[in-house]
């Protein structure tokens, strides 16, 4: 069974629907034991880091996710989930997060411009490319021109460059895919990214981290 961590951070049904479309049943759950017993864990989320960490701690799910990572089971972070696997987030005045990946989640500057000098809007909302630093089994079949759907004002910034699988340009080249051991985490929403997003989800479901 694949568990989707439910910690009151936005609508998790879209991830479950995309998984159902691919033929994988998911268990949307707040129960730490069900998460510990799952074969794979998806950690999505929409909202703010502060209230998300509060909910995770209240439900005891912070430990369940840290243990999932330590156990070697495939773990997929999506959007806010990806931001709070970092050590710290600048959101909500600064929040200590799960610390699975060393580094910070930072706020985009609102003074960024593109190459033509036009003001770049925040949130970074819409379709954008991912430039891969290296290949990864979960990104198999995804090409350079493929685009993914993003909605976010903060971005993860890992300390260790070797954990950055792909980067995306929005004023700066931020880490849009992070991977280490059995963790893969995307800043974009694969469940809303059409064919390449569904490919990524399917790859995750078949992935055996070595």
């Amino acid at each position: 069974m694949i568990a989707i961590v439910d910690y009151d951070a936005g609508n998790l049904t879209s991830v479950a629907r995309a998984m159902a479309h691919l033929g994988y049943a998911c268990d949307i759950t707040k129960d730490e034991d069900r998460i510990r017993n799952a074969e794979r864990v998806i950690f999505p989320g929409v909202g703010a880091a502060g209230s998300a960490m509060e909910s995770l701690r209240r439900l005891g799910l912070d430990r369940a996710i840290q243990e999932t990572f330590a156990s070697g089971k495939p773990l997929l972070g999506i959007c806010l989930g990806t931001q709070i696997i970092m050590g710290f987030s600048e959101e909500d005045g600064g929040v200590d997060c799960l610390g699975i990946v060393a580094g910070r989640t930072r706020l985009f500057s609102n003074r960024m411009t593109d190459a033509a000098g036009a003001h770049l809007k925040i949130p970074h909302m819409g379709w954008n490319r991912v430039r891969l630093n290296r290949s990864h089994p979960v990104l198999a079949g995804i090409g350079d021109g493929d685009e993914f759907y993003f909605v976010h004002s903060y971005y993860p910034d890992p300390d260790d460059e070797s954990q950055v699988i792909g980067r995306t340009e929005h004023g700066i080249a931020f880490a849009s895919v992070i991977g280490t051991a059995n963790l893969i985490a995307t800043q974009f929403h694969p469940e809303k990214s059409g064919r390449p997003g569904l490919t990524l989800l399917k790859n995750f479901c078949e992935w055996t981290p070595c």
Partner: protein
Amino acid sequence: MLSKRIIPCLDVREGKTTKGIKFENNVDIGDPVEMAKFYYEAGADELVFYDITASHEKRGIMIEVVRRVAETIFIPFSVGGGIRTKEDMREVLLAGAEKISVNSAAVKNPEIISEGAKAFGSQCVVLGMDVKAVDKSEKIPSGYEIVINGGRTYMGMDALAWAKRGQELGAGEICLNSIDADGTREGYELTLTELISENVDIPVIASGGAGKPEHLADVLTQGKADAALIASMTHYGHYTVAEIKSFLDSSGIKVRMRW
């Protein structure tokens, strides 16, 4: 770099899609779930459903449409029309929409924007604005006034001031519809679109007047829009989304070319 988004808009009445010209003489042209699937596969970047069901009792039909669309397509879509309360928003979001759009309900009760943003996040809340050009006055300094009821009722609100207020209240995006251009197929209202887009920090979707690919190129460059809404130009088969995107791509506008 972000791609400019091409967003087909489907008007839905009692579970069937329609396309009105200047909001009158709507005719049924199909099943919204089928059309959503068609556009998803055709390369649309996002979809907008606008519920024009008049009777409140039949609103449940739309929720069922949203649920079926959400099971069928895996790109973002928003739903507008008839959303008046936070509970209305919750219902549509839980059924699977990515965003909800508020228009006349926000004009009458601006707090709905902040309530929605607080409960579900700004990224879920689109402020829909119907706008008509009027003479500049003390009350309407931009020369663009907010209207409701399909353009029949003038609200005495300046469109630029309302856009800024909407952003402050927590709207994550603006869908800017020119009633003057809507249904004409003669091009978007570029002056209005540029004015709003230049003066807010949130993305602006231009709406009303698309008739050919050049119109989208104009509004995405000169008009500085982040996205363009289309309806009849693709609904009736005059153009495909791919043809529009190829034109934009060859005009040097970044659009999503692989899907």
